[in-house]
């Protein structure tokens, strides 16, 4: 990393720091995103992901750090950075009072496209994002997923080479989430660089070439999805008992399992595959163990965080994110 100059990278940050008042949000992080790749910043709510995006997309200024986006210095050439990037923030950045088509034409005008070019680009993108039918309707009547799609379509009007997506799937239903993933993959195949933030490991896993885990304003880890998963303890099957006697005899029979005496539960390592589950069930049968509840756990963001932060200090991670 020391040999690459900032110019060969789409996004390069060294010692990025930002504090709001006395709250330190980003504590000197380093980022290097090669052009044409997908980089995912993974972290729970309040970890500083959005702040990082806001700084790199010129919306707010950093307190310190050497920052380059698209080869331009953020401090001295913010307009040049702006000309190279497209940003879709966490909250929809569409004009709800006008129609989807008018929103697109507004973007075309602000990118100084000619009238005909603007109309063509708008029509193309509306078609591509499945919004052609709703194009003439006011955006205030759109569903959440439609607004998100319009948001991304608007970001693409100037044909930006670097795209920031701040939690693009938060609040979307599963179907819309998969549609969004397809959209992002399509962007990447067109050669653009994508900087994506998410709270879902699964999402980063699906999309990103490299993932950085942000925790409490610091990068807790960085690597490919596979590299990160190696840090995380594997999945497991959890057996819960209501009868203490049954729990004790099962704990004796299954010596390989990790036991939790207070919760009357046993954990058996497993990758959650059908073959392994069948093997575990057969083993339980032959050992004469009958659990009251059996659940399968696959590694999730919580596990990554517990693994990276030693099980403490998972800031504001809401329970519903455990999926």
């Amino acid at each position, binding site marked *: 990393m020391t040999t690459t100059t900032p110019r060969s990278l789409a996004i390069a940050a060294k010692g990025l720091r930002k504090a709001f008042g006395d709250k330190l949000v980003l504590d000197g992080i380093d980022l290097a995103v090669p052009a044409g790749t997908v980089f995912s910043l993974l972290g729970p709510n309040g970890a500083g992901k959005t702040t990082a995006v806001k700084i790199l*997309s*010129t*919306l*707010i*200024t950093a307190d310190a750090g050497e920052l380059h986006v698209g080869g331009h210095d953020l401090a001295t050439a913010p*307009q*040049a950075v*702006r*000309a190279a*990037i497209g*940003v879709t*923030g966490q*909250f*929809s*950045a*569409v*004009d*709800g*009072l*006008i129609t989807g088509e*008018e929103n697109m034409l*507004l973007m075309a*005008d*602000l*990118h*100084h496209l000619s009238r005909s070019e603007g109309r063509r680009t708008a029509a193309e993108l509306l078609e591509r994002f499945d919004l052609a039918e709703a194009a003439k309707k*006011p955006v205030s009547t759109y569903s959440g997923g439609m607004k998100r799609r319009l948001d991304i379509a*608007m*970001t693409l009007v*100037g044909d930006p080479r670097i795209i920031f997506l701040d939690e693009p799937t938060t609040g979307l239903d599963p179907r819309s989430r998969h549609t969004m993933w397809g959209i992002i993959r399509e962007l990447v195949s067109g050669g653009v660089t994508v900087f994506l933030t998410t709270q879902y490991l699964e999402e980063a896993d699906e999309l990103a070439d490299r993932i950085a885990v942000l925790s409490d304003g610091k990068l807790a880890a960085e690597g490919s999805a596979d590299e990160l998963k190696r840090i995380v303890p594997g999945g497991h099957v959890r057996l819960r008992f209501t009868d203490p006697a049954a729990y004790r005899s099962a704990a004796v029979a299954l010596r390989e399992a990790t036991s939790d005496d207070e919760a009357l539960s046993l954990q058996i390592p497993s990758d959650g595959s059908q073959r392994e589950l069948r093997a575990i069930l057969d083993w339980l049968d032959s050992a004469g163990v009958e659990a009251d509840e059996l659940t399968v756990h696959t590694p999730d963001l919580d596990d990554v965080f517990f693994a990276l932060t030693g099980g403490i200090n998972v800031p504001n991670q809401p329970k519903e994110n455990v999926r």
Partner: protein
Amino acid sequence: MSTAQIPARRSRLSLAVRDSNTMLRRNLLHVRRYPSMTLNLLLTPIMLLLLFVYVFGGVMSAGIGGGGADRSDYIAYLVPGLLIMTIGSTVIGAAVSVSMDMTEGLIARFRTMAVYRGSVLVGHVVGSVLQVLASLVLVGAVAVAIGFRSTDATVLEWLAAFGLISLFTLALTWIAVGMGMASPNPEAASNMATPLILLPLISSAFVPIDAIPGWFQPIAEYQPFTPAIETLRGLLLGTEIGDNWWIALVWCVGLTALGYRWSTSLFNRDPK
């Protein structure tokens, strides 16, 4: 070097004009799609005009110009004040729409695009000024319909009146934009802008300053609306203007500068 700089500067200027024009068209589109907001703001001056002429007109006319004044004299007295009041009531719309913009994500998008930074505010200001001028035409039409006439004014006086109205509109618009920027939400912006419609009620719009109780006269006299109203009244009807014209101009320039500085410094601050 200097020859290369001139076209660069000119193209930067033309981009600034182009972006501002785009933002202006967006704001005018909002007005066209949602005319109820503008009409609501227009309702107050028109209602007051009709109320004061037809309900209070008989009594009010007794209070101006000594004896012998009738309803038509009071219409003449009232209309310049109501035109100026229309400016105050219409720019409230600018405060609300600026605040609506600021609380939504779209402005963040504009800030991350290579567009002229000032275009958002310029679009709002120019849009609001045009909206006020259109409102004035409507209020003026109602005034003429109920009998207001300004036959004595010369072309020069009409031009001066138009200039005064434009400057006063610009000044109040910048103040309203600042209020919109400073407000956390559109409701707060609307509340904050209320003085723009209350101040004309305690000016010389409805009754002459000397008819106001003595202790209250300074408040009525030393506020921006009274000199603007007195000047417009003088230009349209030939009444005594005195020092009012330059006091009005000082108010216009001062409020414009203040509102401009206030709005732009709030806009250029890092968003939360």
